[in-house]
């Protein structure tokens, strides 16, 4: 009775194990396989799905325009997305799959810094070092923002926000434009690497450097906490002028609601960079009204509006500070793959990855969706292989993100 079932299960398992993941890839099949690892499930899926959508849009645009030319032949891009679920163990499994089963030439992602850190730790530390058995897989990261992650391996490049610079600007802006606002209170998520790093490595040093504001209260909670009463009572007692809410939407919304309940009304609220998306507008547009967030993206130019509309129309993907870089990265890499003279065969995969990496290292300045983006060189002492790009300040007004401040050259566009 049970035999047919056991036989069917064994056959299915064998088929799964023996199925060559690279079928349909490489030059002979007319594709160049690229990868992406984002949180596509779990509580951070909002960010991952948005980045996946924007990357897919870029792939569509490239393929619809005829694909790319490799070795004189027109080939298409094929995107292979894997779910890292914002979980380090899963991320480590996924990176191996991308490198050895999917055999991608480069990967986008990861989404969560807490995944990126261990994943980048498995990559080769020194280029061309035969004794280093680390993975030789090129990453061009779009979301994982924690400062300094690209230093972990020469195979890591990032198009992510430069938070220390952004918050330095914010603090300087507050000091110059609102010198009367002198006291500061802060909240951050102690278990979320990005949030804690934003406080410790970006905001706190900026406040100390500019010597204008007095930090009167710092509270923390967990990313997925459900009760904020005690911490907000502390903020109420501190009664500071400026509130740095360095938390992500799942804890920003309920904590802002708690601020309202306890009648805490700071004169200005500054949010974390990740806040600048639609998630917060869907969850709590009323209590979040007035929050200002530094960002690299807002649909303020015709090109940016077009991309945001198209991504939403095709993939219901939110265009935000973390997802738009995935779109930019795919478009940039298309040109670099063509330039790198890769062979695009299974045998030359490692050499092709290295050629593409070296091309990316030489890229200098490239065009982003909103403005120009400059990749820092490998020997940069502060943030090698990270980018500098235009910064804007956006504010929630009437359930929408509105531009609070933008550089003159972007306003003119």
């Amino acid at each position, binding site marked *: 009775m049970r035999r047919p079932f056991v036989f069917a299960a064994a056959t299915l398992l064998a088929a799964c194990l023996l199925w060559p993941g690279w079928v349909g890839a490489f030059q002979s099949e007319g594709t160049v396989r690229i990868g992406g690892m984002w949180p596509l*499930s*779990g*509580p*951070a*899926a*909002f960010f991952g*799905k948005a980045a996946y959508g924007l990357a897919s849009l870029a792939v569509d645009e490239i393929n619809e325009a005829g694909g790319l030319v490799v070795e004189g032949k027109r080939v298409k891009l094929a995107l292979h997305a894997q779910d890292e679920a914002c979980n380090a163990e899963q991320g480590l499994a996924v990176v191996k799959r991308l490198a050895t089963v999917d055999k991608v030439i480069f990967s986008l992602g990861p989404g969560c810094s807490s995944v990126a850190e261990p994943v980048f730790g498995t990559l080769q530390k020194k280029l061309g070092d035969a004794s280093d058995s680390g993975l030789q897989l090129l990453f061009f990261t779009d979301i994982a923002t924690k400062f300094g992650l690209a230093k972990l391996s020469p195979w890591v490049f990032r198009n992510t926000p430069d938070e220390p610079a952004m918050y330095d600007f914010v603090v300087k802006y507050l000091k110059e434009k609102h010198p009367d606002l002198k006291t500061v209170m802060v909240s951050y998520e*102690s278990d979320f690497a990005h949030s804690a790093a934003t406080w410790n490595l970006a905001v706190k040093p900026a406040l100390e450097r500019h010597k204008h504001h007095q930090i009167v209260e710092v*509270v*923390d*909670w*967990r990313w*997925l*906490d*459900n*009760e904020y*009463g*005690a*911490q907000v*009572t*502390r903020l109420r007692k501190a009664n500071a002028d400026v509130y740095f809410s360095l938390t992500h*939407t*799942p804890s920003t*919304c*309920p904590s802002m*609601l708690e601020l*309202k*309940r*306890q*009648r805490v009304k700071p004169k200005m609220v500054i949010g974390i960079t990740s806040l600048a998306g639609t*998630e917060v507008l*869907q*969850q*709590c547009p009323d*209590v979040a009204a007035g929050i200002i967030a530094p960002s690299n993206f807002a649909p303020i130019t015709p090109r940016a509006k077009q991309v945001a509309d198209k991504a939403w129309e095709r993939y*219901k993907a939110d265009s935000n500070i973390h997802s738009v870089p995935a779109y930019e990265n795919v478009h940039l890499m298309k040109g670099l793959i063509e330039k790198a003279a890769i062979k695009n065969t299974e045998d030359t995969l490692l050499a092709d990855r290295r050629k593409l990496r070296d091309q990316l290292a030489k890229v200098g300045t490239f065009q982003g969706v909103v403005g120009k983006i400059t990749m820092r060189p490998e020997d940069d002492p502060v943030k090698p292989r990270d980018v500098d790009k235009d910064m804007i300040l956006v504010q929630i007004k009437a359930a929408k993100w509105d531009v609070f401040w933008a550089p003159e050259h972007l306003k003119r566009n």
Partner: protein
Amino acid sequence: MGTALFDGTEQLINGLMYGCFYALVGGGFTLLFGVLRRFNLAYGSTIMAGAYAGLIPVYLFKAPVLVLFVTTIVVSVLVGLLVEFCCFRFLRKGHELAPLMTTIGMLIVIDETIVHLTDAVGLKYPAPFGDESLALGPFLIRPDYLAILVVSIACFSAIFWLMHRTRFGRAMRAVAERPEAAQILGVSVRRVNVLTFVLTSVMAGIIGFFAAVSVGSARPEMAAWLTGKGLVVMVLGGLGSFPGAILGGLALGVLEFEAVWFLGSSYRDILAFSILFLILMVRPGGLLGSRPA
């Protein structure tokens, strides 16, 4: 009143009110365990499914909060019955650990279904009790916590009445104590099991409504959080003891609030679980659990 004493008292009041919420969650787990003698780890996802489904009439027809509340309960009951059917009904006797796997599977399925349907975005929940705390003397009291207090007292009273004053309650206690003997005496064990699922699912609906109202949104991580808290309360109070679950919930609520206030949020779980550990060292059966013979 000294500042520390005042602050401690304020957190005690908040902790007791929030503890009622934990007691409801733990109570649901305890009732299921008490009757079935098996863990239902999908109870948290039953709560979450109800909380999300309650929003459907609100988003589609701008339905009032009462409709949301009723929908939450109805859907929770349907999901609870689905869990009973898929994860418990066809499992053979003697496989007590099997429901651990079936209900974990169901938890993941429900959780991921909601993540895929909503793109993991929390959905805004109405605030039927207002957005501002009430000033009661020197203390600020959250109106939704006050509502939780009132509703939980009503729930606990109804459950005690049901358990001790009705035919179903007697059957439930009989099945909990000696299922074989109850069956010989004509009690339908399957019927009692199903009705217990209905009862705890009604509680799940109420819990889901208040869980979402208190944070202002229905969120996909609710299930894991509620499962964790529910299990802690159940063990702390004493496996299968409903009064124990109430006591355990209140204790956990107060401990958490005081820990966050005096030590910081990173010490909340350390303190709460250290005390849980100590209590279980002294009373392995939990606060009101039965001692081994």
